[in-house]
């Protein structure tokens, strides 16, 4: 009976005879897992699959797994050519990759961020786990090609994993250009972005009409408008979701900082408000990756720790919303 259950849930063999054991669990371990599952459901968490598992999500179109915590570069990596600041940002990126980081998001709109990322990536030897995501941002349809080529030069990459149309600017023309680039191997995935809760109607229309791999939008524990329509639509259409402004550019953390974390945040292994907020975001089943931005190594460690440990289930998410709303 136990063996059958184990095979059903986990796939190992429950036999206590070590000579018959297939890689898997013994009875004691299985019973403790069952107990844990019952307790987890009671307290509202979804346990990590194994003690050292780090959360990833699949890109629906391909099944490729990417870490649920990536990194944004708006403001934080726009530091020009100052040697001290460049060294600091390289340290931040090092911490990101050492914690298993993947997606880095940028844009030509972000000043020198792309150039700074290129510098840092060069210093770090171009880590293999990088998932490069940038944007095309120009009114002029004909200028998209040149801008994307310039971005490849700044990042010092032969191609991008993801190219997005920034804030839907001239999206019809730029999507066509990006598709051509995908056909020639310069891009692997295609997406569009919005932020600050703007242009959601237009985004929904584009998601309905265009074959997209990714959308990027704003979503956090207080900006939850996208739960109504855009996130379910993304699931329906098999579109991966990147979440920007997880902390409202730090304003949310600043507002919450005077208040204590709830005692039950410990069940989620959340020690800071940043972790609490990120766990809320990435626990939504439609979310593929959140991209908090930071210029600090300690904050990077904090953010990347969210990739481990339990995630809240639906009941716990409700509890998190209610707690924050009451503050």
């Amino acid at each position, binding site marked *: 009976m136990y063996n059958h259950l184990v095979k059903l849930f986990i796939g190992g063999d429950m036999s206590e005879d070590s000579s018959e054991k297939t890689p898997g669990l013994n009875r004691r371990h299985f019973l403790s897992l069952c107990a844990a599952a019952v307790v987890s459901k009671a307290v509202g968490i979804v346990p990590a699959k194994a003690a050292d598992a780090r959360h990833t999500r699949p890109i629906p179109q391909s099944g490729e797994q990417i870490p649920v915590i990536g990194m944004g570069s*708006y*403001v934080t990596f*726009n*530091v*020009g*050519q*100052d040697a*001290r*600041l460049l060294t600091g940002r390289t340290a931040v990126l090092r911490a990101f990759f050492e914690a298993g980081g993947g997606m880095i998001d940028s844009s*030509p*709109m*972000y*000043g*020198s*961020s792309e150039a700074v990322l290129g510098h840092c990536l060069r210093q770090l030897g171009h880590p293999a786990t990088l998932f490069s995501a940038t944007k095309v941002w120009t009114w002029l349809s004909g200028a998209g090609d040149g801008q994307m080529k310039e971005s490849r030069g700044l990042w010092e990459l032969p191609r991008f994993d993801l190219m997005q149309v920034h804030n839907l600017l001239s999206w019809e023309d730029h999507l066509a250009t990006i598709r051509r680039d995908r056909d020639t191997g310069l891009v692997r995935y295609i997406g569009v972005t919005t932020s600050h809760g703007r242009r959601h109607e237009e985004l929904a229309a584009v998601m309905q009409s265009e074959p997209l791999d990714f959308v990027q939008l704003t979503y956090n524990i207080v900006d939850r408008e996208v739960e109504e329509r855009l996130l379910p639509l993304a699931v329906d259409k098999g579109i991966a979701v990147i979440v920007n402004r997880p902390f409202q550019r730090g304003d949310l953390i600043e507002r919450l900082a005077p208040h204590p974390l709830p005692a039950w945040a410990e069940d989620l292994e959340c020690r800071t408000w940043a972790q609490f907020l990120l766990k809320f975001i990435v626990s939504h089943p439609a979310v593929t990756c959140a991209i908090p931005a930071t210029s600090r190594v300690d904050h990077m460690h904090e953010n990347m720790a969210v990739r481990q440990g339990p995630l809240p289930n639906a009941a716990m998410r409700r509890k998190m919303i209610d707690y924050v709303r009451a503050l």
Partner: protein
Amino acid sequence: MLPYDAEALFALYTSYLHQLWLFVLPLLILILSMPVWILRGGAAVGRIVVGVLALVWLWVGLVFHGLYFTDLNFAAPIYAGLFVLQGLLLFWHSGSHGRLVFAYRRDVVGWIGGFLLLYALIGYPLLDYLDGYTSGMRLVGLSAGPTALLTVALLLHTVKPAPLHLFVIPALWAFIAGFSGWVLGLWADLIMPLAVVALVPALSWKHRLHAVTGHKAV
């Protein structure tokens, strides 16, 4: 709201001042001598003062905004255009077409102009220093805010009212700088919109006074 933070901005200023130090000292000497020239008065001095103002607007537009600030801010080319336009307007007025004669005023207009002059020369870099930015302080003639303030201050000290179109871009910049200062938490910039608010009654007073009395500076 801005694609950069204060740390990156002042790192840029530091780099800008260090790389162009050869030009910084002569420019500063030129600018700091202008208040002294105004004491002498006269049409020739007026043309020189306006000519120097034109030069610094062109410098800030082409060099600071055009070559340096574009690293941080996608709006820098627009700012460069505004500053170049103001520089060209001032150049036009430095020629025979404009006849701006400067003289210190000892009325309300003069006091406002005097305050703005001191703020541009001393207040701006001092507040940056007190904010902790000790190496990239914003100096008049080399950075946008103090240059705009200096221009407004000097134009308030003209015998006849200066053409209003010479105040438009400095006033516009005052609001841009004020907004940036608010976002970045920089005290020095927050006075800029207030300067515009003070400017309106000052200009109005000056125009009325001139219309009534053909007033010359005392």
